């Protein structure tokens, strides 16, 4: 069964460093998302992406964050200058149809630890 894959599974970085989290969505999906989950808390929406542009973003997704689909398969989340509070599990998701009136398929996540 097709699945969303994320790399790396764990990322440790120093505060102020840039990190890039990588995702390969399911191949025939059109909509892509990033969510994050701080330990023990709910899953928080960060950004959605369609047709090579951001569709919607949350307040969390400030100027330190960016997303890119550099080729036909990868979808990346970049945090330019990490802060301690960026430590969380980051999930990529994809969806096959227009809009979000369709279930999301999640990857297994990247655990980001900012020291």
């Amino acid at each position, binding site marked *: 069964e097709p699945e969303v894959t994320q790399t790396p599974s764990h990322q440790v970085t120093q505060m102020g460093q840039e990190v890039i989290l990588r995702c390969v969505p399911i191949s025939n999906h059109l909509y892509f*998302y990033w969510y994050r989950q701080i330990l023990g808390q709910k*899953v*928080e929406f960060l950004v959605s992406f369609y047709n090579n542009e951001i569709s919607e973003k949350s307040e969390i997704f400030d100027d330190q964050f960016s997303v890119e689909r550099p080729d036909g398969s990868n979808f990346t989340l970049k945090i330019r200058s990490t802060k301690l509070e960026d430590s969380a599990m980051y999930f990529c998701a994809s969806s096959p149809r227009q809009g979000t009136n369709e279930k999301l398929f999640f990857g297994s996540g990247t655990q980001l630890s900012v020291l």
Partner: protein
Amino acid sequence: GESVGLHLPTLSVQEGDNSIINCAYSNSASDYFIWYKQESGKGPQFIIDIRSNMDKRQGQRVTVLLNKTVKHLSLQIAATQPGDSAVYFCAETITGGFKTIFGAGTRLFVKA
């Protein structure tokens, strides 16, 4: 003191019993609702969904009930099994929108 961020509502049930997990959603404009299951170390997985023109939908061993009047969702799991132990999230979205918003989550423990 209590770590609020680590406190999830918890439901503990005996194997074979039925489980009911409740959720209050926030946006009266939401018209599509989904339940996700999250096992330890994994991403959320789709369980069942329901649109706002329905008040009940059944799957295999799971049923979702929607009460739009009070903005309430519930997930019923029949004959709960140890493999059902996980955190369950309800989620809401609006047709034509671009984000799905997750609720707080409930941790289900199934005792063998």
